[in-house]
């Protein structure tokens, strides 16, 4: 069932990777939001797992995670997100569902059990995992438990050549290039050195490279699409996640932007 994340990058143009917070503003509306984003032209869906100690996330995503955990009776976590992904992939509302990656911190995976996490995700049709607090050095156990799933590692502007080589070598699906030092969240401008950062990351991998963190507007998306194989938009989408019309319009604009660099 599971399809690789790479398929999202196979259209001969930059891909739009859309991040949504699972369970926010509540479970049903987040499912509707995923369908809306798929219909509006997202090439890969990144589903965020609500977590209480999101080290790499800024205020928008942290707030959405907290609301997701509070709005859903008994909380909302990794297993709930996998079920949500399964429901979406079974009935995506579009002819072909875009591949789904889960973006989760490591502890929910440990708590559910790495083997169980991997088994449930595979059965749900999830394509891969992005785990911001699991650098390649610490990922051995997960990689041996996650056959059939992609694992996307993050490359940062601070990464040394040795580390970029490791990230490039150990990632499957694509490489997530963090645009700037810092946490997720909207920013007014793209970092000045972004082109260099992306070029550095690309020189260490044959996989598609998608750029995220701070990509906030269609204009940003268009600029990033000129540099990379994919554009990840998170906080700016999550901010509109409670309003389907606004969300659809915004993601459609992003999709147009990455298609017309």
């Amino acid at each position, binding site marked *: 069932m599971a399809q690789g994340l790479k398929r999202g990058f196979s259209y001969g143009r930059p891909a739009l990777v859309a991040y949504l917070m699972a369970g926010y503003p509540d479970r049903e509306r987040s499912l509707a939001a995923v369908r809306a984003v798929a219909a509006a032209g997202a090439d890969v869906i990144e589903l965020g797992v609500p977590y209480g100690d999101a080290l*790499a996330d800024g205020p928008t995503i942290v707030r959405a995670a907290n609301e997701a955990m509070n709005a859903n009776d008994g909380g*909302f976590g990794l297993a709930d997100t996998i079920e949500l992904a399964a429901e979406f992939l079974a009935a995506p509302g579009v002819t072909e569902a875009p591949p789904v990656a889960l973006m989760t911190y490591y*502890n929910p995976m440990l708590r559910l059990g790495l083997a169980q996490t991997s088994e449930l995700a595979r059965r749900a049709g999830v394509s891969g995992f992005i785990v911001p607090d699991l650098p390649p050095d610490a990922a051995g156990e997960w990689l041996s438990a996650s056959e059939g799933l992609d694992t996307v590692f993050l490359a940062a502007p601070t990464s040394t050549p040795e580390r970029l080589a490791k990230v490039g070598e150990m990632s499957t699906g694509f490489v997530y290039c963090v645009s700037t030092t810092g946490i997720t969240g909207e920013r007014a401008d793209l970092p000045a050195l972004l082109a260099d950062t992306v070029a550095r990351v690309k020189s260490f991998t044959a996989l598609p490279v998608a750029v995220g963190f701070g990509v906030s507007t269609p204009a940003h998306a268009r600029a990033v699409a000129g540099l990379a194989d994919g554009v990840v938009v998170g906080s700016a989408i999550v901010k509109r996640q409670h309003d389907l019309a606004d969300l659809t319009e915004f993601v459609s604009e992003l999709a147009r932007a990455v298609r017309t660099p």
Partner: protein
Amino acid sequence: MTNESAHETGYSGADERGYFGPYGGAFVPETVVPALEELSRAFSEAMADPLFVEAYSTLLRDYVGRPSALYRADRLAAAVGLGAVYLKREDLNHTGAHKINNTLGQCLLAKRMGKQRVIAETGAGQHGVATATAAALLDLECVVFMGTEDIRRQSLNVYKMGLLGAEVVPVDDGTGTLADAVTAAMRHWVERVEDTFYVLGSALGPHPYPTIVREFQKMIGSESIAQLAERGVARPDAVVACVGGGSNAIGTFYPFLMHYGRDELPLLVGAEAAGKGIDSPLTGASIALGDPGVMHGFFSYLLQDERGNPLEAYSISAGLDYPGIGPEHAYLHDEGLVRYVPVTDSEAVAAFSQLCTLEGIIPAIESSHALALLPALAAELGPAAIVLLTVSGRGDKDIDIVKEAGL
């Protein structure tokens, strides 16, 4: 001989990747991984550089006042029924707690690495004050993250940090306590990693911090061993310290683990915060109640819910209400080398009061958790037993809290 004995306990600290058995490691965003690698290298180089070691020891002697006193508390020993209680007086250090040992070491290291700016998290405010102090002394810009609830509980320390020239950033997330301050400091570090040194205050966080903090606190234990020997005590029967993240405790225990073979190792006891009790939701006892998991960049015992979210920890003590424990402690627990015992708020308050009235020493409410274990140790080890106990800090900061608790 030390090495041979250490080999007998089977104890060796972390491996090169920062694992104590299964615990520790570095579970952090890629952005800071290179900084942690750089820190590991810089730390090893510094510790091998006689000039760095000399500068650090000189500050410890002349500025902190080390070695700290070892005081035989006879009235306390008589009251609890022990042969002797030796108090290792970290409360007499400059700034009033053990925290300054570590912050001077880390700030010297920051300086050596060419960083002009340091950040820190703080719970009770002791680490914040100690970082602000070292930063003032070494001419570093200093920003301290502190939960809003802790700011309320520890207003004196907040004021002190301001006097010392540090900026205190209130953290309003979660319960506004230590864990939230650590998260905020780590997020900020990810943002400013290139020009900022993160002075972590406890023996936790991603590798190499647990080892760095231990190395900058282990004089507590090594001085104690030497001072006890001077008094004719070759081996205490028990060694006690309080454990939140666990920096004063690991600094106390580690030299004993390295010095004595397993057969002659004193009973090492860590007092963790039970809060209102380990059968209550208001607790901070991560060894007694936690399950292994990852938080703040390391794998250790962690109070967490069924989905893996860290739980809010509670303790009367702002220095102990942390939902995790340093990874080396988790390992020492599993190996049976240290015993961890939960102590409630009210037991700690009673022990606080006892030390005030019997010895004229006002201990930190954190340290009072360790003191509270003495009667049970007397019952277990007998009336001739000799106990070493680390008084990690002084209690001026806790006056309002114990007043609220009815003292």
